């Protein structure tokens, strides 16, 4: 066996994926070739470290979150804090709802009808055709209002 062929087969050898005859050839070559023996040791080392480093436990609550996202079930042992939305999330939701409600009220509230008046020509001009409804109405003088609502 050549070193080139050895290097092509070494990973399948490490994974026990070669048949008996091929595996024997690889083993014999490594036994006589120091460079390829090091290559074999490196292949084994990488495989072992890949296996060792994968021993992470399942994060807390992941299984419950999966069940909730799929079948919608929650195990009795599930910690409420794992499934519950954080407090700040509820606070944000409430604040957004309040802001929306205030905006909706402000937009939907009817513009106050102009007070019936017989007041001066200056006040009449405010409600004339050229009046901008978005402009803040100028309040009528107190004396005029009293006069208009009086008996």
């Amino acid at each position: 066996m050549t070193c080139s062929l050895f290097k092509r087969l070494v990973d399948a050898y490490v994974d026990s994926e070669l048949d008996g005859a091929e595996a024997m050839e690889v083993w014999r070559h490594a036994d006589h070739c120091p460079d390829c023996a090091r290559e074999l040791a490196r292949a084994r080392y990488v495989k072992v470290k890949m296996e060792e480093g994968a021993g992470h436990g399942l994060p807390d609550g992941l299984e419950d979150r999966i069940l909730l996202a799929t079948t919608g079930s929650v195990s009795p042992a599930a910690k409420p804090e794992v499934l519950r939305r954080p407090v700040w999330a509820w606070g944000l939701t409430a604040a957004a709802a309040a802001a929306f409600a205030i905006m909706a009220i402000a937009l939907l509230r009817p513009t106050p009808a102009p007070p019936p008046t017989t007041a001066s020509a200056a006040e009449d001009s405010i409600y004339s055709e050229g009046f901008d409804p978005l402009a803040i109405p100028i309040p009528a003088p107190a004396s005029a209002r009293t006069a208009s609502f009086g008996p």
Partner: protein
Amino acid sequence: MWGDDKESAAVRPAFEEQVRRTSRQAYAVARRLTGNAEEAEDLVQESFVRAYRFYHRYDPNLPFASWLFRIMTNLHIDAARRRSRFRLFSLDSQSEATGAAYEPADPADSPETRLLDQEVDASLNLGLRGMNPEFRTALVLSDVEGLSYEEIAEVMECSIGTVRSRIHRARKILREYLTQSAPHLIPPEAGR
């Protein structure tokens, strides 16, 4: 997705049992595929959501884990292709600066204060992140999940020869990466 009908009621307990039996394996694979806990959790959860949605297509005569891994690896490879941060490269392409087939990440990415095993683990994750997602997936299914080449070929829907080639290339990349970027992590008998 299943509705609230009789079929759904019959499927739920079976699927929940599958989740309990395979979620740990799935997370171990996802950790190596993604290289970090947050992305791994997202990948696992999304894989199970898809598995549940298409559970009516699952053949109960086959291992559920293999079917789940197929979903997971497709999701991972698709995501890796979409994201630009997964730098794809050709094994045949040579780095102009070093002449190496693959330029290692900055060794400073591995904090010196880490313990040796943590450093090896971090280096492996960096090496994995830099490679083609098909190579990475084949290697992780072999080394983390312990699947045979035949099983990996079924999961990845390719030939056994392709699996052998992908694993060989992936492990070669990791060997070169560790040798170039972190030679102090290689034990003496495997050193240059």
